[in-house]
């Protein structure tokens, strides 16, 4: 540094100056803290207000459900009695909104679809929700060209779902879109259900080993052990031939000692496996001590 004393010092000075700019003085830090406190207070008040609003909205709706389903107006005068201020109107609006969202929810549950116009109206985007036992699972979407004829341009439906076949069946796609979507969503729900069951089984019943399964979860082979004097291994094959269902069409059980399978109890078990969702069925089996 000896060669460039002054210049070196100058750049040192500069860096110091920068540092000073970087690090704000103490009291400003204090101010920051104060500011944050204020912000938090404000936030809290907002939250409180929201809670209050929500409560009152609930009240409004619970007051006269039949009226509220009717629409805003009746609900409006229904509430006008209390206080006709802006606030109350707002509350009514909120009530209405909540109610509409509930309707939307119901609409989904009874198998409605979200349909959106795309690319200036000459395209549709349909999205189908899947659910199992009231749990929402994946959404699948289709993009459909409207003109000249309906054509599926793009989708994220799993490959093993016979989309093309469904579309063709009696020109379902062209003539009755609703039917097409219906069958498609049945397929999807079936798949989602089976997958969910499998997942649950893997989570809940460690003792039962899943020997084999495939992409559409249409074939499951389970290895169960029957607690006897000595454990007996039981192979159980579930075959979901109808992909729209989440219950197996046929259940075959194999084991080294045949007479076990002949027992009525195990016959019942088979029917049980046929009629109840897999994880539940297994749960009951385990409870009854037929398997561990």
């Amino acid at each position, binding site marked *: 540094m000896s*060669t*460039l004393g*002054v*210049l070196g010092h*100058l750049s040192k000075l*500069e860096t110091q100056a920068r540092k000073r700019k970087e690090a704000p003085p103490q009291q400003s830090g204090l101010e920051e803290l104060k500011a944050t406190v204020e912000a938090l207070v404000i936030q809290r008040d907002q939250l409180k207000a929201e809670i209050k609003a929500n409560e009152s909205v609930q009240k409004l709706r619970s007051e006269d459900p039949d009226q509220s389903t009717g629409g805003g107006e009746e609900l409006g005068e229904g509430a006008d009695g209390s206080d006709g201020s802006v606030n109350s109107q707002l509350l009514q609006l909120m009530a209405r909104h909540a109610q509409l969202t509930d309707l939307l929810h119901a609409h989904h549950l009874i198998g409605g679809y979200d349909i959106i116009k795309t690319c200036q109206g000459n395209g549709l985007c349909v999205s189908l929700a899947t659910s199992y036992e009231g749990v929402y699972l994946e959404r699948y979407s289709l993009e459909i060209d409207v003109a000249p004829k309906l054509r599926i341009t793009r989708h994220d439906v799993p490959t093993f779902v016979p989309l093309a076949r469904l579309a063709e069946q009696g020109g379902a796609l062209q003539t009755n879109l609703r039917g097409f979507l219906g069958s498609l969503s049945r397929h999807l729900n079936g798949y989602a259900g089976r997958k969910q069951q499998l997942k649950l089984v893997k989570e809940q019943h460690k003792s039962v080993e899943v020997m084999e399964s495939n992409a559409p979860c249409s074939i499951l082979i389970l290895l169960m052990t029957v607690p006897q004097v000595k454990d007996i291994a039981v192979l159980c094959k579930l075959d979901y031939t109808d992909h729209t269902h989440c219950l197996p069409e046929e259940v075959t059980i194999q084991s080294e000692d045949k007479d076990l399978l002949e027992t009525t109890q195990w016959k019942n078990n088979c029917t049980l496996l046929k009629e109840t969702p897999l994880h539940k069925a297994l749960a009951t089996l385990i409870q009854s001590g037929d398997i561990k």
Partner: protein
Amino acid sequence: MAATLIPPDFDSSSSTDSSSSNRGITRSLRVAEIARRKTKAEDPIVAALKYFSKVQAGTPVQGNEELERNLVSVETVAYSKGLSPEAISVMLEFAMSLRMGTSPCARVLKFLLPSTVVPHQAVVRAVVWLCVGKLPITTQVLFIKWVLTVFDMIDAKDNLRAIYGFIFSFVTEENLCPYICHLLYLLTRKECVRLFRVRKLLELQSKLGKQPFLLHLLSLYKVFCPELVTLSLNSRIRAGFKNHHGPWKLALNAIQKRNFVQVSSDLPLALQTKEKAGLRKRKLGQMDLPVLNVVVQSQKQTSYNKMVVPLAHIQSFVQLLENLHLIELPAQMGSLLGSGLALHYLDCVQDESAFLRLNFWLGHALNEEFLFCGHGGASQGSDEVVRFLERLLSTQHFLQEGFSSVEAFLYKFLNVWDGSLLRPQILGLLSNIPVVPSSCINRLLSEPLMQLFFTSTVFFKCGLIESLNGMLAKWLTWHSVYALEDGLDVSLDSPTSMHMSRSGFMQSVVELVRFVGRLASLGLQLEGCHSLLLSFVLDFYDTVCDIFQKYGLPLVVMIPAGVFYPALFAFDPVSVDRLAQIMYRYKMNLTSAKKQEKLTGQAFHISRQTYREFNHYLVFMVNCLWNSKIFQPGDDIELSEELLLRSRVPQYWASFNLIHHPAFHCYAIDFHHKCWPERRDVDLNSIQNSKTWGWYLEYLFTQGFDGLQQFIQSSISFHPSTTDSQDHRP
């Protein structure tokens, strides 16, 4: 384990060995046997070398496990600790002879990393194989690159020079040409320069166009025998040879770093060399070849006795003087920067070729490393670079002159500089730039610098002023040293060898001073008369005001109003004091100039205008500080009467005299307390009366305002309240 291969007597014997590495190989086998017997365990590399030395021609390569295995073992050694000279010669022989076809050849070349030294005879043989001409062109290029990389590690370069002709013959080879030229550039000696070679090169140039590599080689030839090379060559050739470090550079550095310690430790070297070596290593981390070559060569020194002494072996000034006439410069001229001795050498023998090569090397390094760094400048600011630049700076200070290549680099770099990258170093280099013709100053310096100056922080502004101040000082010193007695024509026999008429020089100086004047006035205005900046500006004018007396250049350039008034009305007394000092010096210079003019009837070019300006300033200053007569009609600063009255400042005319001037106000009050400790109310005007006024001055002078003292004593005769600035009029 490679080390075990070098028998103690190898070096001496090798020197007598007439470059037939067959014998070298057989011996290597013997050695291998010995080594084997010594170390019971079968040493894979020994076996490998044995294999490579005796493998038959035409042995299949595909699926040849043995080959694979041996290659691997040698490779590992090479990358871990480098190959012994033995191994090098064996492998090189194996590769270049294409005994097993071309496929292993390139791979072998890639891991030929010497641990200590490359035996020259191996290289010679390799070149022979090159002449056989069976090698594919890519491999040839690879080989030459390799030679360039390890050049300084080749023990005896003379044997290479012996086959200069053969190497030269490859110049015609299109793809090889650049690399060959580089190699030749490193090898060339005066005796190598022949007319037919020059012809060849010129012919090539006419074919390939003005290729830098050809130009460089030619320029070197020209230096050695100007009579042969007639064409005029551009003194500053843009880009030099590219760095052909190929795949080896990093690996080599790594190995060097690893080996350096233990190798150097067991060598009886003078401390100075070693430390210098260390310096070079640190300094030129990524742009110089490793230190070891120095070490090794000095080890060899005894072995072959030739008439030149590598500079690396000179260890004392005495030695330097003794064999001054037969110094051999290293291939990497950059290494010269490291050692004081080398610089002494450069300084005393104004060896043009040395300077040319050094300049070439520098320009090359600078361009490669900073100006056009491939990787978006990731290397910037790295310690290596900083150290390198600082080394360069200290060298320039040592030689008291800048290198032309550095200058050229700066002119380019300023055009893309962001103003903060390596600022101290760059500004330092800037201040070393030799005199620039006044016609070019504006373009080369003003334009890039203006833009940087006005858009950057005050710190940059200060730095730039400082460095320009340094530049001016250097120019003036340079002039005062090299000016010939007759004083009319300045000529300098420095490598830059620039001749410029005195008037030309003066123009350049005036140009520079004017430029800084502009920067200073506007800078002060923009920064609100920042006192730090002001002080740097005043530094500059400290230099300017003394040009005539201190440097004997008949030139006086006045301080511009943009600096004068801010300094005069500054809040800190120091600035005012320094201004006074500067005015005093101006006065001295002008008066002495006048005297000289009277003495020798010879007419100076100091115009009346200058005197007039000076007197104008002087009068104003005196009126303001002393006579408390400010805002007179005709001053630079005029305010209308009623405006001043409206401002309700009591006796505004006195508000900038030595008592009320904001810079001295506190002193006045302090003085007042000292004079009349009992007085409650402070009435500064009571200082006005002549007696106390005198005391007050005394008091001020004791406070260390020497500038003020000199100024007042010189330009005001001591009858208070009467000035005589008249007698300065010419």
